[in-house]
């Protein structure tokens, strides 16, 4: 039996537009989290998530439940991010919302990909930890980063990641282990251990 997300999408595909709203409500936070892990700031992540839903709804008539809906959704999301990334590399780059709000230091896209440095007023250890984690994730190699991001999206299993990326489950697992160790190592270098 299909999972709840897949059931909802099948109803959308059958022409029941009302099923789309609960699907978006369920998946929007996860998609935004996915794009943020890839390096987007909050506003760009939200924008990307909306674009992905636009693509899903446009292609609704052709949807078939060959895999879980999340697998299908994040496959589209990944391709969308590749497009965004290429556009950024080719174009002038956008000024991040954080920079415009004065939260960043004006380095633009590079800062978006590395995450903001801890500010002097962010004295709390939790905020330091969050900032350090963003920096640590930014140090991951491309393959590790890709697997890591997909795995950290709730309920996305190694098997699904393998299907999305077209790699064996064992490779997914080894990349995940390497990613976590790298993150832990960076945290230790910065003298930070989670509570």
């Amino acid at each position: 039996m299909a999972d709840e997300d897949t059931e909802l999408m099948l109803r959308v595909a059958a022409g029941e537009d009302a099923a789309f709203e609960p699907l978006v409500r369920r998946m929007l936070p996860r998609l935004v989290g996915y794009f943020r892990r890839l390096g987007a700031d909050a506003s760009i992540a939200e924008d990307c998530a909306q674009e992905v839903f636009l693509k899903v709804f446009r292609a609704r008539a052709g949807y078939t439940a060959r895999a879980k809906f999340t697998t299908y959704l994040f496959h589209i999301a990944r391709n969308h991010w590749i497009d965004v990334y290429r556009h950024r590399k080719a174009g002038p780059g956008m000024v991040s919302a954080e920079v415009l709000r004065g939260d960043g230091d004006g380095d633009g896209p590079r800062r978006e990909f590395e995450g903001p440095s801890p500010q002097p007023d962010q004295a709390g250890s939790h905020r330091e930890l969050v900032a350090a984690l963003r920096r640590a994730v930014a140090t991951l190699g491309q393959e590790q980063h890709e697997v890591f991001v997909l795995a950290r999206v709730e309920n996305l299993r190694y098997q699904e990641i393998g299907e999305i990326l077209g790699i064996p489950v064992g490779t997914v697992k080894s990349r995940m282990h390497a990613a976590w160790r790298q993150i832990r190592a960076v945290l230790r270098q910065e003298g930070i251990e989670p509570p």
Partner: protein
Amino acid sequence: MSRPADHDPRLLDLLAGELPPAEAEALEAELARDGDLGAARDAWAAVFAAEREAFEPAAERAALERDGLRVAAWVQDTVRRDEAAAAKRSAAAPRRRTWARILAFSVAAHVAVLAVLAIALHGGGSSEDAGTVARVGMGSEAFEVEDDLEARYANSMAAVQWRELVQDDLGAQLDDAALMEQERLPEEIARFDFDEPAGWGAPAHPAEVTVPMLRRKNAGLKRRRLDLLGFNAKGSLRAVGRGLHVLALRQNGESGLFEGAGGTTSVRTSSLATLAFLGEGHASQGSRTEDEVVARAVRGLRRTVASRKALAAVPDEALGPLGVALAEDYMLSYGSLTPHAAGRRTDEIERLTAEARTRLTSETTLAATDRTWLVWAVDAAQRAGVVGSEPHDRAAFQGWVASTAKAAAGDATDTQEALAVGMALLYAERGAEKPRFKRWSRTNAAKLLEGLKLTGEARRGDPVGETALVLLALQMTYRAY
């Protein structure tokens, strides 16, 4: 040498829920016995939890779930609109291709003749060089214009747009194409005699000036130009669509005006929001969903101008946007093709223009931004043919443009600058000296686009006026380039 406990890969798989049940059970038993291994598991669990909070903060997650309704509505609206447009294009495709070939052949022939003329005149040092070359340049855009024609036949205003298209963009050399195109127009529009000058409108509405300032011409070409400047045109158009959707949601059903913070409405905010819709080609006499939004808003705004006495109470900052909104809607809705049908709708615009002139000439303490808007309101009423060009207007014109340029060159905001750029270029087209101001940089364009995205967060504050201004600035960018 044994490996440290926190290097045990099983811990990571356990926390990720990826360990097979039997192995998980065995590891749990081991964790209960081995204190170091248990501590390592707890440390990893803390890293996992901190990572989740870093990228998916609980508070933000709840807000995003609430936003799901808005996002779903926007997605469905956008896709349905696209699908409807595609279906229309598909139905008309065979005939369109035939006419496109005929039009293309006609345009190509005219362009070739004009090119020869331009070269000849250039060699002779004629004073008409610039105009001739410009016409040749316009000819090259004909294919793009033709590509846009199908959408223009969506409603009865197609004839107005087609007439403007021919006269503004391509010039008289396409009159023969206009004759051919009559066959494609709806029957009631085809009744107009395109060959008869009187059919184009009353003398009070000279065609060369009745151009809505907000109408976007040659959109595809401008998108490419903007992208060359580093402006993400496709992204900005999507952002504009989202912005309009947000504004539509903030319209008060009873008054037709747009609601700002705390559910309050204001003439200025509603005028700006109306202009944002007009900038996308929506007008009160159209038949699309967004056109109905404009129609409601215009009805609400007109009620505020019911009498000269009521108008006197409208503050400077609101009067200009109000005048521009009504005049631009008039131009987009009626143009000059059906001036008599518009009839009494010009009363409010006449009253507004008189009030704007009074304030421009008698008040010396007007803020530069308010003055700019008032000038635009007078100018729009003139272009609409509702009022004539008064002698003192003409005398003051250069001064008004200069104040606009000054505002643009000073510490004006991005949105003010965009508006000023659009105005100044419009005036330059009409023969005024083009004022000097810093040219828009791609950074400014990017900031504007980001500013619009930020309204997603600002929606919880007072977004309508600011959203409308940013939308206008984006639309002005198209107008300016």
